[in-house]
């Protein structure tokens, strides 16, 4: 879907209509169970937009989603389905916190660089395992990345309880490893928004540059479009599988570092895989693989995620509703054949009318 050629108009219309249909589906479901959908959506949107603090929080959430979304998108462009984003984010988080706790007294710029660098490497290695197995043994990257997700989850909890500390939460990292930016925090009345936002914007630009302006990016796209033709043209499918998975995991790991150092400043045991990983998949699909599209999709999902917290108290609706809406949106993006069919029909009707004049 990300690889088919589309006219610019329907490339914008499909995500917008999918979002609308997703919200409508959620509203119908709420009506069915006797909830008031207008109250629920109002609680969600007003909750976020009426307060600088929660706008900051939504953007912070969107920042991490941008990294996981870009990570998923690059593997998808190359023709691979990296469901392991959540696990790669988690190992990135562990690596960043581990390094930051180990060298608390290094100067800020150096400590941040090596912490984030370690997270990128950890995420890349975790995804690289799946890429290498796919390239050399043809092993399904879907199953391998899922298995590595659960492996990452159990190992993370083990590392927290047995290596980093004896409890369920590590110490906070030092000031030198903090990503917070004074004026942003003040502007948003103390939200956890951080310099990850600027890193995300830079990465969005670099991603665009890599995919459209470099030979390596061209090869990744070509292999995704037609592996046989690319191999015939002298590109190495194996090399591109591994490369795209390394970048994919590296981006997820970077997201983990931003989440760990920026949002929490520590690491704690997890009962399940971070939903930021799976929502990253949703963000990438909604953004149709376009980096700018992914950025804006992230903001939408950031608002949904943070706004969902207002629904139980203000409208009595369980906050899982937001996840249902997200799933419905992706359903319509995935089944965009129907949307396109309707759009095409409308278009051909219009031209037919014009022809009759």
């Amino acid at each position: 879907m990300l690889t088919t050629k589309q006219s610019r108009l329907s490339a914008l219309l499909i995500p917008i209509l999918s979002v609308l249909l997703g919200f409508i589906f959620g509203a119908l479901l709420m009506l069915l169970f006797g909830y008031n959908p207008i109250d629920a959506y109002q609680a969600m949107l007003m909750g976020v937009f009426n307060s600088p603090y929660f706008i900051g929080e939504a953007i912070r959430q969107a920042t991490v989603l941008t990294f996981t979304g870009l990570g998923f998108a690059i593997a998808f462009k190359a023709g691979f389905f990296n469901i392991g984003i959540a696990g790669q984010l988690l190992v990135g988080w562990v690596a960043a916190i581990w390094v930051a706790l180990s060298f608390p007294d290094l100067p800020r710029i150096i400590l941040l660089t090596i912490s984030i660098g370690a997270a990128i490497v950890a995420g890349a290695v975790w995804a690289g395992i799946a890429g290498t197995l796919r390239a050399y043994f043809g092993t399904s990257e879907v199953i391998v990345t899922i298995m590595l997700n659960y492996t990452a989850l159990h190992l993370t909890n083990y590392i927290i309880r047995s290596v980093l500390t004896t409890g369920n939460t590590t110490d906070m990292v030092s000031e030198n490893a903090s990503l917070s930016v004074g004026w942003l925090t003040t502007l948003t009345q103390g939200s956890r928004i951080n310099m990850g936002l600027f890193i995300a914007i830079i990465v969005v630009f670099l991603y665009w540059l890599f995919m459209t302006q470099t030979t390596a990016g061209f090869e990744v796209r070509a292999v995704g479009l037609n592996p046989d033709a690319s191999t015939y043209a002298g590109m190495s499918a194996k090399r591109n599988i591994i490369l795209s998975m390394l970048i994919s995991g590296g981006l997820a790991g970077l997201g983990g570092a931003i989440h760990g150092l920026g949002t929490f400043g520590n690491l704690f045991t997890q009962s399940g895989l971070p939903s930021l990983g799976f929502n990253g998949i949703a963000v990438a699909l909604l953004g149709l693989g376009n980096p700018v599209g992914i950025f804006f999709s992230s903001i939408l999902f950031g608002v949904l995620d943070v706004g969902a917290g207002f629904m139980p108290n203000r409208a009595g609706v369980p906050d899982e509703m937001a996840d249902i809406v997200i799933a419905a949106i992706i359903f319509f993006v995935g089944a965009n054949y129907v949307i396109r069919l309707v759009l095409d029909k409308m278009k051909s009707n219009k031209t037919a009318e014009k022809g009759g004049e």
Partner: protein
Amino acid sequence: MDIVSLLQLIVSSSLVYAAPLIFTALGGTFSERSGVVNIGLEGIMVMGAFMSAIFNLSFYSTFGAMTPWLGLLAGGVIGILFSLIHAVATINLRADHIVSGTVINLAAPALAVFLTRAIYGAAQTGPLARSFGFSDIFLLEKIPVIGPIFFQNTSGPAYLGILVAIIAWVVLFKTRFGLRLRSVGEHPHAAETLGINVYLMKYSGVMISGFLGGIGGAIQAQAIHNEFGILTVAGQGFIAMAAMIFGKWNPLGAMGAAIFFGFAQSLARIGNYIPIIQDIPGVWLQVLPYLLTIIILVGVVGRSTAPKDLGNTFIRSK
């Protein structure tokens, strides 16, 4: 602990953990044999687990000891309904199979917990009214030595699963329906030329997978966790898919692989009683099933071939 009771413990707990995997792996086999990848099985298991928990709590007073078994049907039915979403999306709406499966995996836990909150006011149902517990297999339990090890105090659903695996094998390889289903997964256009209704076959494959996956989830809730919550299924659907691949898309192979994975998972629970294994740190036993899955997939690929047309959208000839 003497050797017979140790073996009894290993066999019965392996089967307890294998039972949901057997059913779900068989479900995956039917779907993929018809050419539709169904990674949504994880989500379908979640819905099956949810539905059976509701059924179990609501109807225990009516059905008594039969409740968990009927709960399997409840799980299977909701599994069919949920698999229809996947069928419509992939077969009619030409959605990417993995995207559609991912949607199901995103939607199912959210929807199930949403409904649990709507009904029980909490994210978990709380303990079920009656779980499967352990049963003796009629007559077979009386065989000396083998009886106590394999057939006493063991998992009833697992033996049902073994029976269903045999039936599934007969259906897939010895009936006209099975031949048609497989032909659609290998070469749908050729099948269409011969007058086979490709869409109908694909729908059957996906709906059977929904039924069996829902049952798998129902067993997970009623035999292992004894409640429904967000962590009830946690990856079992994916492990079942790995079992299907390990079993070379053959029902009997999938069943065998599922029992093996059941054994691997049970080690984290019973490892303390088994010599040698009790010295391995717990974290390795926890990640063992997942790492083993990867190692096995690497090992069997090449000797295991998927249906030829798996994952492609079939567009009817005009």
